[in-house]
């Protein structure tokens, strides 16, 4: 019996603006783009991890106005849970993402527990950390 993560959801203020970050800066590929009424669900993934979809949607997608407002507030305040990626070349990834104009929270540093990582805000305020992948 196996179990694996198939989809994870990331709430963003503006899906189009976020595609520029997740696709063009981070290098993920758009795998699906579903519209329903005023809302949109865009799934991105990476060949480094086939089978995992990262789904972007806005705070009001599938929620009441009140719940959407609460979600939007926490998103913009930057207090929703972080997303952590890893890459085989942290310095190159950092430079690419920084060059895209993303807000830098932390340049690549060696953390106290033996990992090297950096951190950004995505355009909506989600914290996105990127770690150096362990040598194969």
């Amino acid at each position, binding site marked *: 019996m196996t179990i694996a993560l198939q989809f994870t959801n990331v709430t963003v203020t503006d899906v189009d603006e976020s595609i520029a970050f997740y696709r063009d800066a981070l290098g993920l590929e758009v795998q699906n783009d579903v519209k329903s009424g005023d809302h949109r669900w865009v799934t991105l993934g990476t060949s480094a991890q086939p089978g995992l979809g990262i789904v972007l949607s806005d705070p009001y997608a599938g929620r009441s106005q009140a719940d959407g407002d609460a979600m939007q507030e926490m998103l913009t305040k930057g207090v929703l849970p972080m997303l952590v990626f890893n890459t085989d070349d942290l310095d190159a990834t950092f430079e690419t993402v920084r060059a895209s104009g993303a807000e830098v929270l*932390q340049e690549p540093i060696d953390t106290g527990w033996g990992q090297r990582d950096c951190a950004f*805000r995505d355009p909506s305020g989600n914290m996105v950390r990127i770690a150096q992948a362990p040598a194969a």
Partner: protein
Amino acid sequence: MTPQEIENLAHLRRARDLIDRDYAKPLDVPTMAAKALMSPAHFSRQFRAAYGETPYSHLMTRRIERAMALLRAGMTVTDACMAVGCTSLGSFSSRFAEIIGITPSAYRAREHDAVKAMPACVAKSHTRPARQASSRIEEVRTIAAA
């Protein structure tokens, strides 16, 4: 939420990120307010409304959270105080004791096994000191009980 409300909250977030990043520098409220594109008084009120504490209070809790990590690693109280941007050992110690409940030297001498087992980014949020602030859920309970 209106686009203007979202924009204002994003400005506050950038100021908060500045505090979290530059806590060891001599940060003052006008510098933080400039990052949020607001006047210092307006910024302080808006920050408190959004995050439940004043910008200066957030700076001090951030500094004390970082000092706690340094103390756990065995740094002296004086060095930890200076390393996190506090210039007065007296006010650092009293603020530390007020928030954590024990003095920095007592904290340094204590066992820290559970925190050592966590990655630092988890320890950062789990050990972040919190003041007793208002809670919407508690307010509802209080009203319901009355």
